[in-house]
């Protein structure tokens, strides 16, 4: 077992975090119009004056990178370079942002109105803003906000405008362009649009990456994108996507800039605008196409109270410092830098590790309101519980979360029952407290069918789960240890570790677990449990203390829905999946399988209905070679290794201990 020194370093509770200011405060006391029209003079990178958006296009089209690929493509396709060049221009036209201060001012005005109607407060850590300002002056900056809501990116620009900071250009999905007017508005507020997938399209990739890099190198504007790639419907962080991160780090690797600052930003919503929308989507109601009318329906939303928002600007991370000792930049000495090529393995794993580290930073700086703790308790009591007990448990959980270093925003001066009551009130759409008992809201009284009733219930559960999910990262590592302690053969440290390793592997698509960091994760989990007295270390054994029993059972209870959900998926594959099942058919098939199980066996594992869990489980089974993708004709089908799937199911069910060999490194 590694040294204590390592533990103490990782003690998250010691991390100091900044204070917040409410930016709506001033908005409630002074003219929005004046605010929207006020003088705006942000600090720029190295004091450079950015070029015009149109000049940018010319620079990109004339860059060696793009010219090289144009020639390559023209040779491959037998087209003249001119024609390919036109294509490149078309791509650029479709993609390019047209950031305009007037549009920002328009949003500054309208969003002020909207935010004041929707939210109690929008709280920002001003020290983070100061750090950001410094960073923008010194190096090209990349803003990496978490992504829980459509409004994230408007919120970002709004905050930056408020603090007189450089407005970012934002990578957005093409689907926005479907909404004619909104798409163009977003374009003029700095959004640039990328196709969701462009697989082997060299030209697209070249134009796109050069476009982003040009803006970065020239210090045109901070680049903003979502590491998670898309909005997380579950409010759990998504495993990071690497494409854009690769692109923004590349200029550093190639020596084109001295450094790049990556700024993780955590936007936490006390109440997510899209909450039940997400749940429905996860349950298979197709998401409404991003259409203007859809957004306008959101007007109804304006009459609701969505609590407060916290925006935490994390410590800027210097790519140069991170790369020190890991990246050999002279790799680029012997080939012209404009020739595209695959990055080395070290580079890839470096980018990957960095991405995970950044997502963890986002998680750590998410502000947690009392409600997420309440939701976590409720999720372990789906039949409801007494208000008093709920309050007691929530307070207990608050203590534990605090000990684990959670970034809690708990109103200290208010008595606990008031805190709980006001949280319940804010979330009246999800929970009800009647006769001193709190439970999730039921669906309509007489449903058309048992399936429909189940579906209605599941919407509530998944919505509630999305709040519990916000606090999961705090408990994840100790919880994995807790489950490992239950399933391991013996309480010997290395047995527990091998069970831990197994679980960690299974859930590595579900949670943010950085590849290659299993030892650190285990140490962190154990350390937190040791620290709160839940376990003791006796020689080679990890022993649960009396005080630890409730802690450990709560922690493993937290993971229970996932364990169960994965087992359901396994069962589906071992019992029902038909030969020749395609990936496309998988989600509806596994969903109806789960529905049947729940109805016939009275199971409560509603989360097995979530397409997010289903996709993650599928990825895990593929990764663990319990499934194989087989290409036949133009179809990809899933081939099941029944033995392996069963073994995984049994291990997760605790029937068989994880048979993973112990790592010598311990």
């Amino acid at each position, binding site marked *: 077992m590694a040294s204590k020194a390592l533990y103490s370093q990782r003690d998250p509770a010691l991390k100091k975090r900044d204070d917040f200011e409410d930016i709506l405060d001033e908005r409630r006391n002074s003219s929005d119009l004046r605010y929207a029209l006020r003088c705006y003079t942000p600090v720029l990178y190295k004091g450079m004056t950015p070029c015009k958006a149109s000049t940018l296009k010319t620079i990109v089209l004339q860059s060696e990178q793009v010219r090289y690929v144009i020639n390559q493509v023209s040779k491959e396709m037998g087209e003249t370079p001119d024609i390919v060049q036109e294509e490149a221009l078309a791509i650029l036209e479709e993609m390019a942002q047209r950031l305009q201060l007037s549009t920002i001012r328009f949003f500054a005005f309208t969003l002020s109105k909207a935010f004041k109607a929707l939210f109690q407060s929008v709280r920002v850590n001003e020290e983070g803003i100061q750090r950001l300002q410094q960073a923008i002056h010194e190096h090209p900056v990349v803003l990496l906000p978490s992504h829980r809501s459509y409004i994230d990116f408007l919120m970002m620009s709004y905050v930056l405008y408020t603090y007189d900071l450089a407005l970012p250009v934002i990578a957005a999905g093409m689907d926005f362009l479907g909404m004619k007017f909104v798409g163009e508005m977003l374009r003029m507020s700095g959004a640039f649009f990328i196709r969701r997938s462009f697989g082997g399209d060299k030209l697209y990739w070249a134009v796109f990456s050069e476009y982003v890099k040009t803006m970065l190198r020239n210090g045109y504007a901070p680049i903003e994108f979502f590491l998670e790639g898309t909005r997380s419907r579950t409010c759990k962080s998504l495993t990071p996507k690497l494409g854009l991160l690769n692109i923004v780090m590349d200029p550093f690797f*190639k*020596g*084109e800039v*001295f450094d790049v600052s990556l700024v993780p930003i955590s936007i936490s919503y006390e109440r997510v605008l899209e909450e039940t929308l997400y749940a429905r989507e996860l349950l298979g109601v197709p998401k409404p196409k991003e259409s203007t009318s859809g957004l306008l329906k959101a007007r109804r939303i304006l009459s609701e109270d969505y609590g407060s928002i916290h925006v935490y600007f994390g410590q800027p991370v210097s790519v140069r410092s991170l790369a020190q000792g890991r990246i*050999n*930049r*002279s790799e680029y000495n012997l080939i012209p*830098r404009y020739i595209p090529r695959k990055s080395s393995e070290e580079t890839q794993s470096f980018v990957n590790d960095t991405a995970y580290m950044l997502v963890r930073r986002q998680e750590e700086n998410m502000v947690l309101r009392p409600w997420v703790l309440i939701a976590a308790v409720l999720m372990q009591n789906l039949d409801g519980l007494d208000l008093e007990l709920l309050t007691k448990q929530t307070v207990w959980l608050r203590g534990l979360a605090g000990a684990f270093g959670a970034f809690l925003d708990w109103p200290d001066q208010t008595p606990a029952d008031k805190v709980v009551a006001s949280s319940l009130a804010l979330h009246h759409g999800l929970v009800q407290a009647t006769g001193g008992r709190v439970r999730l809201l039921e669906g309509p009284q007489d449903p058309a069918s048992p399936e429909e009733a189940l579906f209605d219930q599941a919407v509530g559960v998944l919505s509630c789960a999305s709040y519990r999910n916000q606090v999961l990262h705090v408990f994840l590592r100790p919880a994995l240890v807790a489950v490992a302690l239950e399933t391991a053969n013996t309480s010997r440290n290395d047995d527990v570790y091998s069970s831990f390793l197994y679980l960690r592997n299974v859930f590595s698509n579900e949670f943010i677990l950085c590849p290659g960091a299993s030892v650190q994760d285990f140490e962190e989990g154990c350390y937190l449990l040791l620290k709160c007295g839940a376990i003791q270390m006796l020689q080679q054994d990890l022993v649960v203390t009396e005080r630890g029993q409730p802690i450990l059972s709560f922690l493993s209870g937290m993971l229970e829905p996932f364990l169960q959900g994965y087992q359901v998926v396994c069962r589906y594959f071992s019992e029902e999946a038909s030969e020749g099942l395609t990936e496309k058919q998988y989600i509806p098939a596994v969903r109806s399988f789960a529905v049947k199980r729940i109805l016939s066996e009275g199971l409560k594992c509603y989360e097995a209905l979530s397409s997010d869990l289903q996709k993650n489980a599928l990825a895990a089974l593929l990764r663990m070679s319990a499934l194989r993708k087989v290409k036949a004709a133009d179809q990809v089908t899933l081939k099941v290794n029944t033995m392996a799937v069963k073994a995984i199911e049994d291990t997760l069910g605790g029937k068989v201990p994880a048979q993973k060999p112990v790592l010598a490194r311990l």
Partner: protein
Amino acid sequence: MASNYNSSERQRIAQQRLKIIAGHLQKDGDGQPVRIFANDCKAEATDRRSSVARSMPKRRQEIMKWNGWGYSDSRFLFNKKGQAEFTGKRYRLSGLILPSLKDWFEGTFGANLQHKSPAVPSVSASTVPPPCLNEDFVQDVKASGVPYSHEAEDRMFRAHGHCLHEIFALREGKVGRVPDMVVWPNCHDDVVKIVELASKHNVCLIPYGGGTSVSSALECPPEETRSIVSLDTSQMNRILWIDEKNLTAHIEAGIVGQDLERVLNESGYCTGHEPDSMEFSSLGGWVATRASGMKKNIYGNIEDLVIHIKMVTPRGVIEKGCQGPRMSMGPDIHHFILGSEGTLGVVTEVTMKIRPIPEYQKYGSVVFPSFEQGVACLREIAKQRCAPASIRLMDNAQFQFGHALKPQVSSIFTSFLDGLKKFYITKFKGFDPHRLCVTTLLFEGDRERVLQHEKQVYDIAAKFGGLAAGEDNGQRGYMLTFVIAYLRDLGMEYYVIGESFETSVPWDRVLDLCRNVKERIVRECKEKGVQFPPMSTCRVTQTYDAGACVYFYFAFNYRGLADPVHVYDQVEHAAREEILANGGSLSHHHGVGKLRKQWMKESISNVGLGMLKSVKDFVDPDNIFGNRNLL
């Protein structure tokens, strides 16, 4: 005689040329010229001595500083009024007041004239470790008649080059391992004798040319237990013959640059090899380090200039059998010698190309709105292969620095004109004085061609926003070349230490490399606790078809630092790593020495290193040339 000149014309040109060189270097011609000899070493030693006035005496310390750069009589100082002046009579700047230097100095470094860090005035002979002599060797040397000494001063003087840490230690009166003995061979045969004796008695030899090394090449390896003998080549300084048919000259390797040019000039010729250290550095040193001269665009670098090299090794003498202008005879053995840094043997005689002195010289300068545009212009000039004899691009900080070195009154710098020009550049053209940069130019050739060439270059410059800024600015730039080295000593009097270092880099990476290295320096200084922002600037000093040579100046105020030299070394180390990471080379012309050895493997690959090692093993199996440079 070259056919296109009649003799009176040649004489006139020679006179003019002498004036120019003197203009660069010195106020008056310094002593009598060195004569040209057609005879060999067998000439009576006494006869020779009486007829040659050497610019470099055996006891160098008589005319040169023992703990700083250059001649003892020439140095910068702040006078009682706090004005900077340059002492002595040798240089154009000598005796002049530099009114803006103080403000620049204090402003740039946060230095203060009240805070002095003076050097120890002298070190006593007892500080120098007593010589560890190999008595048998000494006896044999005595018998051979080659002059030698084991006086402390002579030995100490040859224990160092001009790296910062070397000079800093001397100023503090610290003396480490020094040679145990100095020998002054007078000719090739003397060297053969010495090398034989050294091999026979297992003595370590370190060739010493001008002592201008900036790579720790002259440092005695502290782990060396044998007697170390410094072989000073300064007395081998004759031009043995001039071949006007082939335009070559055969020269002893100890001659220093200024003597070589002066003597050749008398016959109407020049080599055109003008490294910034040419007052003191020697032909053998150039060969041993692969030196590069300012005017390489016309004349070539040292490897282009040599036709024949003679080197004495422990295995015997290595040389080619003919003087053909190019050969295909396997790998060129000259390239084992060029850059060997004294690890294989002593270069004793070299046949070099010579050229008639150019009829006409013209300076010039161009101001660019930004460094980026300046580099783009140089790149275009290189592409069109029309670079003048010299072209250098200074960044903004160096431009400012150049201004700080303007003398008070001087015929060529009328302040009225200055003011007018400054006004024109910064106001009319909208140049930002904190971004603009300047290129200095030197054209050479016959008058008509120079004027034509000049126009071509200025036309290109105009395309990149460059604005001609006059001959004076250009000339001043080149004149400063030789006095800038004296400035470091001034800085060291006031807690400022610094150094320059160089690299070569492909064109497409020049800007990135310059920016990143400069910034790395600033950042490292901050991290290492340097209290004041450092000066971190660069210039592009040479252009090639495929890239450029970049030269960095780096200096900082070290008040408050416990071990400034260590901090300096760390920062320079980091800067070198940054250079390599950005596609720059380990060295363009300073060489490797011991300072940059650690990067040789990644620079030339394991096999490459093995090749060099096996040559060393064959040529010098007993490591007689044990300065441990390079490998």
